[in-house]
């Protein structure tokens, strides 16, 4: 479609923020911009001031030469590109023959770089991504001073036209994975992409309904670390969460601070996280089925304590445990949506008053409350999957309560088979444990000291195995 001033002005006719300025620089030119998207100072400095004293320009090429002060001056190849520039805050300058150039006059609105609330660390960088794609790319480029750092710019969303930057390191990232990701983004047909989580759903080839298959981080150092392993970082304008792919299950066990701590401590912490997650999902189920069916397994004195504590409870052990878990989930959900000050009070009311009152009233047994609380706290060691783990915990507890250990075995195997079957971007989800890739165990649950990690992980497709060039 041909670029035309009339078409642009028709499209934005009647909009208060649509600005047109006639410029007489020898021939007649028209500068248009969206006031709400442009920085007045930039429009003035990069467009109006340089052209104010020009009197003999006859073509756009001459105008372009006069705009040397502007860093982003270009000729949009077609009408759609011109509209995209215009809506992003560029000022378009038209000549009388419907040719145009666009000058970068975008305004920078947004919060400043700060420590992300979801990934606080004791040691290590405290910078976090923000909502602006340009700032986020800058944060990556600041750490990757190499010409091999490549960005593929795309736009998605019929109405939002959201800018997407696919970032990778040429020579490390597998080109086939890059092409596959770009292809999937280009195939997205939607009204709008408001956050990177929207895009993550389109990028998930398995269309997983349980576990997330695309990683996300708010920290540029983590994103760069992952890119150095062969992953891609996908920045979505308007979202401080940068997507990383391919993604492994074991990444959920890793924390941003792991690489800045002693590797022995990191290994211990990761094992602790792993054990707590497994215990969180299985503990309530095991408690119920041991109490109902297999009480012989419980040591006698422990069994007597449990029986004494729960003999007056009017519910069956399964109902009792499900009640505890559901109440815990309600409290967690309410806590997330409360302002922080009220949230603390709510936690206290929930944990102490509600739990204690229920035990005192004889509605719930103290062991069940303790097991529920322990399991609930354990879930938070894998904060990105808390909700899904909580649902799994309810399901396994229910099956375990109905079918005993047989149910626990069947449901655990089903979850395992499901996890094992997932593979996307040529990466098995459970790697490096299944399939077993011994070389990659250096930074899976256990971590060897960073200087000894000389090879990039084999689980992630990459073009350069050695971390040393």
């Amino acid at each position: 479609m041909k670029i035309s001033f009339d078409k642009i002005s028709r499209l934005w006719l009647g909009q208060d923020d649509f600005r047109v300025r006639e410029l007489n620089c020898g021939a007649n030119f028209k500068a248009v911009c969206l006031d709400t998207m442009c920085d007045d100072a930039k429009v003035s400095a990069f467009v109006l001031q340089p052209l104010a004293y020009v009197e003999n320009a006859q073509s756009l090429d001459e105008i372009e030469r006069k705009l040397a002060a502007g860093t982003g001056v270009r000729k949009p190849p077609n009408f759609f590109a011109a509209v995209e520039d215009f809506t992003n805050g560029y000022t378009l300058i038209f000549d009388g023959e419907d040719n145009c150039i666009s000058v970068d006059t975008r305004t920078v609105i947004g919060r400043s770089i700060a420590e992300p609330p979801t990934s606080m660390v004791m040691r290590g960088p405290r910078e976090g991504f923000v909502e602006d794609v340009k700032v986020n790319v800058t944060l990556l480029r600041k750490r990757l001073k190499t010409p091999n750092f490549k960005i593929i710019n795309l736009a998605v969303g019929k109405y939002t036209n959201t800018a997407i930057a696919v970032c990778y390191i040429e020579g490390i990232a597998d080109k086939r994975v890059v092409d596959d990701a770009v292809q999937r983004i280009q195939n997205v047909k939607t009204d709008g992409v408001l956050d990177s989580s929207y895009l993550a759903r389109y990028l998930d080839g398995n269309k997983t309904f349980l576990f997330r298959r695309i990683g996300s981080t708010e920290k540029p150092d983590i994103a760069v670390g992952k890119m150095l392993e062969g992953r891609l970082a996908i920045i979505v304008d308007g979202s401080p969460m940068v997507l990383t792919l391919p993604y492994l299950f074991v990444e959920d066990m890793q924390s941003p601070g792991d690489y800045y701590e002693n590797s022995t401590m990191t290994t211990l912490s990761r094992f602790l996280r792993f054990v707590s997650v497994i215990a969180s999902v299985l503990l309530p189920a095991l408690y119920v089925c041991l109490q109902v069916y297999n009480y012989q397994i419980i040591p006698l004195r422990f069994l007597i304590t449990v029986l004494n504590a729960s003999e007056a409870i009017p519910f069956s052990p399964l109902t009792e445990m499900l009640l505890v878990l559901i109440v815990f989930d309600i409290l967690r959900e309410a806590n997330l949506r409360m302002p922080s000050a009220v949230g603390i009070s709510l936690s206290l009311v929930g944990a102490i008053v509600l739990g204690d009152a229920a035990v005192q009233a004889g509605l719930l047994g103290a062991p069940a409350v303790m097991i529920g609380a322990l399991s609930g706290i354990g879930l938070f060691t894998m904060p990105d999957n808390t909700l899904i783990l909580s649902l799994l915990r309810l399901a396994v507890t229910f099956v375990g309560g109905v079918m005993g250990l047989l149910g626990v075995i069947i449901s655990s195997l089903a979850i395992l088979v499901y996890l094992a079957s997932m593979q996307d971007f040529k990466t098995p989800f459970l790697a490096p444990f299944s399939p077993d890739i011994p070389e990659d165990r250096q930074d899976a649950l256990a971590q060897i000291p960073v200087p000894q990690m000389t090879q990039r992980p084999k689980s992630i497709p990459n073009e350069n195995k050695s971390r040393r060039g």
Partner: protein
Amino acid sequence: MKNRVSIDQLALMYLLLVTGGKFLTLPSLLAGDVGHDSWLSVLFSFVWDGVCLCFLLWAIKINDKSKLDIAAILDKSLSKPVSKALMALFFVIFVLRINILLSGCYKMFSVTFDVSTNWLVYVLPIAALAFFAVSRGFNSIARASQIVFGLIVLAVIALFVSPLAEVDFGELLPIGEAGWGKILLNSYTRSFWFSDYIFMYFVLDGIKIKKHVFAPMLVSFGVGAALCILLNGVFVALFGYLAPDFDLAMSKIGVFSAASTANGRWDWLTLSVWLISVFVKVIVFIFCAYKCVEKIVGAHFVKFNWIAAGVVLLTLSLPMFVSTRTLLDTVIKWGVIPFTLVQYLLPLLMPLLTKTAQRKTEVKSE
């Protein structure tokens, strides 16, 4: 490819299959027939298994280039009707083995874990799990086995070590008291419990070979066989002449070490972990039975073959109509000889059949 599996995964899975299910009713049945020499019967069964396994691995190696599946190999080398007949025989073996494994577990749960329910309610969740796994592909079953492998081996070792202090290995003497002929005959009549390698026929086209074929498989076979022989020996040495009366070996083996109720029956937890290997075996055999029906009917669905699943599901109701005892007696009386054909004769012929099929495929493509 959903059914692709590496040789390492195959080896680990084979180890689970070798140990899974052999400690339910088999030790007491063998003890009933040959007394304290039952471990020798197990040993001889494994010797023959080892020979057949080597031939099958040879065939796998030959097939690495052409990646023909079992139906294609049999079709091309023996003709289609023979191939279908063999598939039917495989199907019968798998169905019987699944049912006997499941009925062993059923008994284990109702006797040991006090969970009594009817067969259908018990078997349906297991079938659901198996078909879910089948729909996700053999690859996911192999990967899941890889994850649980370490845990299961630890559980088996724990079950073996826990009663050691109480074991009197003198009970195993004199060796060969039952008579070598009887011992050998028993290892043949109980062959139904062995030859676990038969599942490999159904993943022939998906085996990914890196360097070695024989080493990982034989190591895994050796470890599995050693554990089975040892556990049989421990079981007989522990219970002596009473061994035939303790029909669920695995649940009884830890009874002395964990007899103190103050400590709880922790051996039952390890037993539950071992049961995972039985379920893995059931899933693998259901996958094979499903494949057999697919090959016989010739119907292939892109995602999931409901016809094959339906047929296999129907056969799982068998123990509702026939007792496990009758099923076992029938197998020993009528099944041993025909089953020998696919369990022991076919593996020996597989390298030859694979080469013939390859040659015919090459001629056709030329």
